[in-house]
């Protein structure tokens, strides 16, 4: 019986990966949920918005690296992040001006806006591929590990290793900062309050003199910041590939809906619910149980509830259960 090793295995293979994946999903879901709350449609172009912001940030990172500028142990991409955010904000404001405003003025039904956003998604898909290509791009530099598996084994004398990548730590810290800033902005500034008013009741907000175009523009800027940050963090943790970002859309939407569309707190919770359930329900608990049980009690099987290919089935099962029994999501967002 060796509870310490059991705990380390659990942390290494379940807890640490799920927390960082959850933080990435949460940031993405926040963007989706903001657009849903204020502009009232599901933005399918969000994954590609993330890809665009990341692509610009990567190019800027390469530029900085060529100039010999780095960020010490932290990845250079964090220095380049503001440039990516500005470029993405310009792209989103431009898209809004050219595409979405037309439909907003006509008070188009949300379902039409969803289809429109799909068109925007394909265009952005193309733009990103034109800018940076279809291949895999690695742009992480700086220290790779905060705690490396081997280092931990030597330090603790335990059989099992624990690895925490710097990108995972940065992801969680950055996500926490971004969320804190967002909540402070929404709750304590005049603009933030006007955005919430606009989200709660558009007509009343208009009557009380809130400028809708301004609210919309600020929403897009915040969404650009969130999407670019989420995309860059994800790319630092894994690597950048346009196709993967497009695929990220599914778990992000699952997270936003589970948490409650339009509710920022829900988006964060949803991100972690999806990440933890994906990892925990498909994890083979054999090693943990081997350590935790007295010798000789060890089971033969892998103790895997379901095989990993059902990972996405897990997300969607949760999604359906939530939609059936609590259509507004865990945190009382708007029903879909």
């Amino acid at each position, binding site marked *: 019986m060796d509870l310490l090793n059991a705990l380390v295995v659990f942390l290494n293979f379940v807890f640490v990966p799920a927390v960082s994946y959850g933080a990435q999903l949460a940031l993405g879901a926040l963007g989706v949920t903001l657009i849903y709350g204020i502009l009232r449609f599901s933005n399918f172009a969000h994954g590609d918005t993330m890809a665009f912001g990341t692509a610009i940030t990567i190019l800027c990172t390469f530029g900085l690296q060529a100039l010999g500028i780095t960020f010490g142990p932290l990845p250079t991409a964090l220095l380049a992040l503001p440039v990516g955010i500005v470029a993405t904000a310009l792209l989103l404001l431009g898209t809004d001006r050219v595409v979405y405003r037309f439909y907003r003025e006509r008070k188009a039904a949300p379902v039409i806006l969803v289809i429109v956003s799909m068109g925007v998604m394909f265009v952005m898909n193309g733009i990103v591929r034109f800018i940076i290509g279809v291949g895999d791009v690695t742009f992480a530099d700086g220290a790779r590990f905060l705690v490396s598996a081997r280092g931990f084994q030597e330090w603790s004398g335990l059989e099992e290793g624990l690895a925490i990548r710097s990108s995972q730590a940065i992801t969680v810290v950055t996500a926490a900062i971004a969320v804190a800033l967002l909540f402070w902005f929404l709750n304590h500034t005049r603009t933030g309050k006007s955005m919430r008013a606009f989200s709660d009741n558009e007509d009343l907000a208009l009557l009380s003199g809130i400028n809708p175009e301004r609210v919309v523009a600020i929403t897009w800027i915040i969404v650009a910041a969130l999407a670019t940050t989420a995309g860059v963090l994800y790319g630092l943790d*894994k690597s950048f590939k346009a196709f993967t970002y497009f695929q990220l859309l599914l778990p992000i939407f699952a997270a936003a809906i589970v948490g409650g569309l339009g509710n920022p707190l829900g988006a964060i919770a949803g991100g972690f619910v999806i990440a933890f359930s994906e990892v925990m329900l498909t994890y083979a608990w054999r090693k943990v149980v081997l350590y935790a049980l007295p010798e000789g009690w060890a089971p033969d099987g892998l103790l895997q509830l379901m095989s990993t290919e059902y990972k996405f089935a897990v997300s969607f099962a949760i999604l359906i259960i939530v939609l059936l029994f609590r259509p507004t999501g865990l945190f009382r967002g708007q029903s879909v």
Partner: protein
Amino acid sequence: MKRLLLAVGATALLAGAAAAQDAAPKIGIILGFTGPLESITPFMAQAAEVAIAEVNAAGGILGQQVVSERADSTCIDAAAATAAAEGLVEGGINAIMGADCSGVTNAILTNVAVPNGIGMISPSATSPGLSTVEDNGLFFRTAPSDARQGVVMSEILMDRGITEVALTYTNNDYGKGLADSFQAAFTEMGGTVTLAAPHEDGKADYSAEVAALAATGSEVLVVAGYTDQGGRGIIQNALDTGAFDTFVLPDGMIGQDIVDALGAGLENSFGQYPGTDSQGAAMWQEIAAAQGFDGTSAFAPESYDAAALIMLAMAKAGSTDSAAWTAQVMDLANAPGEQIFPGELAKALELIAAGQDIDYEGATAVELIGPGESAGNYREVEFKDGEIVTVRFR
């Protein structure tokens, strides 16, 4: 009026028929320009177009310049691939160079090629299932079936004294086919596969897959995936968490990009991919370098060979009709005859015109067996100091 219309229609038909006979030989290049393989397909298409340009520079075939048209197979969407191939057929192609992934290749073969009687040569579909598919003799591939690779991989493991592995494969026809054939061969040789877990490509996170594989307690992980997809994500994650440090990499997983990305992480790993030490491979590298692209890119040489075989077969058959040229492919690809290497297509055409036998070797030492697929020579490789080092040929 009615008569006039009929007359006009008949004339148009006749003109159309005449035009069809005079039309230039046309090859449809159908590969996944979007989707999971979008990073290697541009080079594959370019390789095929290099072969076409070479033939055209030598005066073309049947007295005409060969033309080609690209279409997108998407690699994953059978319906889209079928529609794209039908578009090509309407455009009047005489042959298909493609498709890339095994799943869409099967879809195009059964839905488009066989019903329309169009011959096709795939450079990269390696699923064992395609060996037994009903093809009316129209389908060939310049890539070997993975049934062979499964045996080669098992032999390599046994030679290294490894009898227990965990296995993960990309969840498509390629990954599943390779995993099945490997499992069968490895078990037969007395090995044990502790867990065979599929993974999806292009997904956000692979922690769950690695966690499950690590729980088996195996020391060695076989990763049947793609270099820039889930396969790489899994290796990266396994290295980071310290779950595995020895990986066995089949063809889809070997490329300079993965060595560059993972570096020292692959020091203990090994693998195999189709390849020969034939002089054709080196000659192909030179041609590709002169055209400004990387000839080692996966399946680029196979693509050159596929396109070259199609055109030589048409020349030998003296016809662009699929039934006629597909009957010549096996003959051209195999001995006896004068060996033909990349860059020598002009010579091959001359020999064919003179009625002499040729043995097309090409960039990949083409040797077609059984149902028209490459016999399969493999290179056993290790990864030392950021280089792919060939240990031996099998």
